[in-house]
């Protein structure tokens, strides 16, 4: 039974430690829970179907042992960790899984899952085109329509226009609240440290949307009022890269006399920066996920169709949203981090380095194999990077 009623940051801390707790309760109470991988399966549709979306993460503290049955070791260790946990029965509370073609391994993960003993009654895969052009948005809308029909069939609930609109508005509210929370890190020192922030973000991916919204509201109130605020540190950093669902890296950076004040990762700003726009229909969803959500998995060009390439203009059209965050959050340096074998992010690094070199913003690239253990050797490099910013 619930002993003390936790709220705000302490609740987020608890959820972070046992992410599946709330959805397991809901599942026992008869709710269907659909797990999803990556940011591209629209949570609005799962929620509008009366089911609960649950973002699937890996576990950096759990050695990968079972996944060798379904993949070799030279693929994304984050996705390997997911299938590893799945094979070990850690996601047995899920009624289904939804994936999307964000990257090739994201696709093969769904195949491996579907064909394995952990397959649940519902598996759906969404094809996501790799450009943000109008024809691609139309195609993607078709893909989302088939996801919608499949969800309706599995849940037995019709996703009406009204229900979709209501879900979109709830998630837009969550996105607005998260942006408000990030605003509290613009001050020096920030009102919230990156470890606390990540615990809140991970919680949001583990709760039904209304409960998540209440949590962020509580955290905002608490953070504004509390007296034990984060300390002022030597420097302010932005962390970029693919999924970062574990506080260990932030812990390491913050112990090197730096505050991480903002990020560009898919467990942070990337997930919450873009809203679904009116009229909140299927086209609005397609537009939000394919065009407005910024992930390096999508090909972008400053002038679509233009064959003459202007490198600097292209870079600026791709990365100026990060430049804006650097200005708004008063960032002194950028940590470009990636999990090993992430092609999608790996090819982005030299471009990003060049872009920020030109702007005079120092960057450092670090790579890890998605295990807490692999982070220790990075410590000296992060400390030295912070020293160079002095």
């Amino acid at each position: 039974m619930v002993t003390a009623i936790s709220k705000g940051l302490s609740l987020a801390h608890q959820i972070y430690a046992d992410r599946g707790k709330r959805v397991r309760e809901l599942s026992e109470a008869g709710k269907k829970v659909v797990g999803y991988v990556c940011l591209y399966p629209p949570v609005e549709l799962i929620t509008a179907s009366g089911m609960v979306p649950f973002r699937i993460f890996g576990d950096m503290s759990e050695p990968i042992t079972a996944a060798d049955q379904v993949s070799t070791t030279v693929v994304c260790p984050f996705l390997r960790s997911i299938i590893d946990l799945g094979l070990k029965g850690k996601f047995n509370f899920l009624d289904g899984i939804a994936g999307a073609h964000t990257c090739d391994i994201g696709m093969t993960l769904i195949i491996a899952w579907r064909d394995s003993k952990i397959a649940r009654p519902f598996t759906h895969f969404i094809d996501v085109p790799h450009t943000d052009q109008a024809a691609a948005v139309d195609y993607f809308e078709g893909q989302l329509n088939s996801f919608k029909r499949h969800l309706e069939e599995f849940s037995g609930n019709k996703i009406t226009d009204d229900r979709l609109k209501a879900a979109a508005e709830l998630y837009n509210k969550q996105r607005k609240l998260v942006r408000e929370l990030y605003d509290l890190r613009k001050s020096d020192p920030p009102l919230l440290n990156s470890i606390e922030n990540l615990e809140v973000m991970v919680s949001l991916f583990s709760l039904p949307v209304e409960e998540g919204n209440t949590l962020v509201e509580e955290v905002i109130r608490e953070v504004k009022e509390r007296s034990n605020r984060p300390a002022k540190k030597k420097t302010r950093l932005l962390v970029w890269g693919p999924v970062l669902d574990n506080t260990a890296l932030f812990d390491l950076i913050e112990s090197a006399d730096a505050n991480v004040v903002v990020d560009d990762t898919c467990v942070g700003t990337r997930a919450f920066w873009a809203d679904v726009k009116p009229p909140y229909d299927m086209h609005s969803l397609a537009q939000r996920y394919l065009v407005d959500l910024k992930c390096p998995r999508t090909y972008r060009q400053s002038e679509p169709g233009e064959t003459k390439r202007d490198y600097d203009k292209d870079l600026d059209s791709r990365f100026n949203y990060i430049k804006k965050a650097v200005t708004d959050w008063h960032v002194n340096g950028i940590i470009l981090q990636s999990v090993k074998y992430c092609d999608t992010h790996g090819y982005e690094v030299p471009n990003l380095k060049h872009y920020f070199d030109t702007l005079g913003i120092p960057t450092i690239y670090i790579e890890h194999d998605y295990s807490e253990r692999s982070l220790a050797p990075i410590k000296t490099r992060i400390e030295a990077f912070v020293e160079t910013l002095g």
Partner: protein
Amino acid sequence: MLNEISRLFFAGIDIGSTMSKAVIVDASGVVRAYVVGPTGAEHRRRANKVMEDVMLKAGITLDEVAYIISTGYGRVSVPFADKQVTELTCHARGVSTLFPDVRTAIDIGGQDAKVLKIKNGRLTDFLTNEKCAAGTGRFLEVAADTLGLDLNEMGRISLQTETPVKINSLCTIFAQQEIISRLSEGQPLPDILAGVYIAVTTRVVKLARQLKVEPPVVFTGGVAKNVGMVKAMEIVLSMPVLVPEEPLITGALGAAILARDQAFQLVQDGLLQIKKKELTEAHIDFTEKNR
């Protein structure tokens, strides 16, 4: 306070993976003494030992040391240090103390290699090798073992040729096998040794090229003591490289100079409190996640 500190000394201690070094400088930044010794398994005792030795050599007591900075792999196990600074910052400072115009520094130690970009005496960018001993002193030790040679002897022999053989593998173990097969093919020993140096150098220069190699280039670390390596470095980079008289101590020297600067800064800010130092051993908590 300023008068007092001008009579005092400053120490830098660099606990590397293989060797420990300590340097004492005076208030003008002049080196008064340095020592170098193997690190061994006991980091914590080693720090005390090098500190005692260097003070003995400088003819000073601990009470005369105003500020100590520790650096290197084992910097956390120097409990009497006032501050810890990474070896990257310390090397940059040490190298630019000796060569004020330096733009690129390449340091090859027992188990790691690093490339530093330096401008106006400040570290601006760096890269280190990751998780692999290829391109480090360890690679040379394995080669020396395989051939039954002493490291210095190996360097001298390699200078007898202008036609190094090609060692293609960058992995230490595969390269060892390659050395053996070159030997059995009957290739002359000097050619093989020169090839080994070229292989190690190529690995490190590959790292350096990511940051653009700009002259003057300074080569430091234990491996820079080897004449064969210095020659190979000049061949692979196609430019001359500068090697300090004692290439092992640049990290400790930088730490000592930084200790001096830090102490003067603190005096200026009215913040320096010279704490009574004791050469206590580090308490190492083995449950801690520190490597």
